[in-house]
């Protein structure tokens, strides 16, 4: 199982694109692997014949464990190695692992061998065997989901409940990360109503040329990504991370854009967005969102973000509070642009207004620092044409 990203500990085999005995050449797509973040095609690393396939579709296999061999024609795969298949787990056999108590709290549990999983007392294990109770379906009542004999007896009595459908890795990851963030990160929220007139105007001015020259439609999000990235350059603490015992300033401004995928949301990253032209940002955003929709984001597409923008304006949401995606320190929630009655020079007037809500990690920034950033961002949006005109 190849490591497809830095922190990956295991991968789930989605499908084999070649069969055992197929002749394959180096660079050919060999199989599809699902990591916590994406489905990735793994290419053959050598010419030869696929042999000794040990792991099958649905298996979750720790990184580094042999899943198959590429052998020369006529050659036999080596004898079973000790680190191979036994460590793999068939996720399809464990539907109940979706029960809350049994969901691993981090990616690590997924790599565990058979010895791991919820603990069960010797008595409970014996009773489960005697009464034919599937312990993988029991939610233990003890610490860390430890299963006692009482849990087994209760399960033996209880009518069979349909197990909740297994979560996809995106949904599971979303549940874990948002829970972790919401319970561990001290969030605070700053709200600002902004006149979006200049933003609309600069889009009208800049978009046609970009669409003509580069073939991509510029969205409000693209403009906000570009502006926010440029303002962030002046506010390194908003672009920082809580490192457990201190604050780590991130050297690059990598804008993460929240994108809806089939059963969750991912943050697709536009690296160095502060230096990227509006057109380049629009192109990258379009590419990422297309691949997000088809479930083909690569792990690299969703890692390394330093600040997130999430926009629910297209769903007519006025304003909302977003959950920070650690280790990032802040996330900007963008509402819709809509006409509202506002005071203009002492008179009621109608302006296209937009509400920005900035969620910040209080371990990294305080209210005043976040407010100054939000104020600078508001000023930049008010002068969007000047900020982005050079593009």
């Amino acid at each position, binding site marked *: 199982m190849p490591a497809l990203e830095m922190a990956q500990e295991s991968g789930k085999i989605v499908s084999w694109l070649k069969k055992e005995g197929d002749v394959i050449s180096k660079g050919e797509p060999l199989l599809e692997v699902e990591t916590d973040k994406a489905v990735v095609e793994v290419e053959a690393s050598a010419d030869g014949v696929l042999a000794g396939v040990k792991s099958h579709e649905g298996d979750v296999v720790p990184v580094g464990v042999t899943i198959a061999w590429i052998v020369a024609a006529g050659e036999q795969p080596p004898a079973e190695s000790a680190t191979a298949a036994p460590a793999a787990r068939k996720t399809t056999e464990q539907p109940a692992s979706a029960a809350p108590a049994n969901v691993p709290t981090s990616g690590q549990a997924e790599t565990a061998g058979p010895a791991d999983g919820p*603990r069960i007392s*010797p008595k409970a294990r014996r009773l489960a065997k005697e009464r034919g109770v599937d312990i993988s379906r029991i939610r233990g009542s*003890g610490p860390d989901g430890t299963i006692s004999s009482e849990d087994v007896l209760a399960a033996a009595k209880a009518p069979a409940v349909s197990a909740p459908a297994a979560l996809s890795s995106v949904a599971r990851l979303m549940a874990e990360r948002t829970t972790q963030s919401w319970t561990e990160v001290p969030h605070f929220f700053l709200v600002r109503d902004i006149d979006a007139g200049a933003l609309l105007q600069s889009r009208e001015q800049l978009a046609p040329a970009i669409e003509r020259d580069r073939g991509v439609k510029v969205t409000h999000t693209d403009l906000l990504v570009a502006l926010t990235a440029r303002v962030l350059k002046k506010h390194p603490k908003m672009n920082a991370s809580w490192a457990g015992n201190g604050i780590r300033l991130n050297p690059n401004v990598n804008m993460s854009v929240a994108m809806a995928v089939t059963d969750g949301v991912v943050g697709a990253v536009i690296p160095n967005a502060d230096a990227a032209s509006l057109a380049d940002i629009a192109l990258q955003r379009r590419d990422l969102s297309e691949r997000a929709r088809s479930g083909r984001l690569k792990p690299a597409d969703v890692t390394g973000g330093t600040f997130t923008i999430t926009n629910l304006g297209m769903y007519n949401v006025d304003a909302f509070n977003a959950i920070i995606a650690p280790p990032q320190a802040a996330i900007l929630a963008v509402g819709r642009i809509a006409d509202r009655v506002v005071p203009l020079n002492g008179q009621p007037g109608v302006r296209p207004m937009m509400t920005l809500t900035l969620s910040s990690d209080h371990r990294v920034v305080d209210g005043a620092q976040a407010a100054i950033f939000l104020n600078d961002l508001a000023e930049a949006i008010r002068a969007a044409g000047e900020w982005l005109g050079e593009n």
Partner: protein
Amino acid sequence: MPETRELTLGEAVREALAEEMRRDSRVFICGEDIAEAGTVFKVLTGLVDEFGKERVLDTPISEAGFTGIAVGAAMTGMRPVVDIMFGDFVTLTMDQMVNQAAKVHYMSGGKWKVPMVMRATLGATRRSAAQHSQSLHAWFCHVPGLKVVLPSTPYDAKGLLKTAIRDDNPVVFFEDKMMYRLKGPVPVEEYTIPFGVADIKRAGSDITIVATSSMVQVALGAAKLLEEFDISAEVIDPRTVWPLDEKTLIGSAKKTSRVMVVDEGYERYGVTAEIASVIAEGAFYDLEAPVKRIGAMHVPIPFSPPLEDATVPTEKSVFEAAKALCSGGL
């Protein structure tokens, strides 16, 4: 119900000795400060008046010597009872006990017997410091040929000591020096208690606490505290750690599914370790949690009162450990 009266544990021991000395003229006692002094714990007070200095034999400070005398006397048909004032000094008797007393019957092809009893004390919290506070009974349990008795009540002390004196094998009889004033009912009429029969001091259903010697009292106190948390503790006293009533211990473990073993000797490689492993082997598939052991910490017993109290099991530490065990922690 036989007629009973309240005796202290010290009085019960004295009564057992007196009765056996009256019953059998071969029984005699030897040790330090046991005659007119009646031992530092005053357990033997008055015996010298009834039985004289030949049968209540004061010795010099010479544990190895007078234990050797006892082994030899036992081999020639006497039934000596050796008094080791502080159990810490069994160290000096080890060759006599381990290589002589425990082996003679076997090595003589059954021609010789060593019907002796060694009475010694154990137990901390008397502020007697590191050389007068240890509980070294586990050492004797390790040696084939020796029986080891740990009474926890006046009733048990009397009945077990009489059995020990009548036993044809060497028996080591440990009394907790802090329990000599513990009172309890003792029948007026004669009785003995067989070795290898554990006593359920308190019946319960949620957890088994196996405890020895004064730790039985500690466990009973903890059981009372556990009651307030709706935890029903069964307290079992093996009474003799060798022979050990494995059947009763395993039976109780199977009933409650959770077991703690409490003993005042050092926890490491101690009596708790042996009993825990007997239970783990015998009741593994009926256990809800690993067997928990509490013994003395692996340090010399401190002289400082607060430190000494922290070194050995207490009602509170036993209660807390039992509660944790019952709340599902594995």
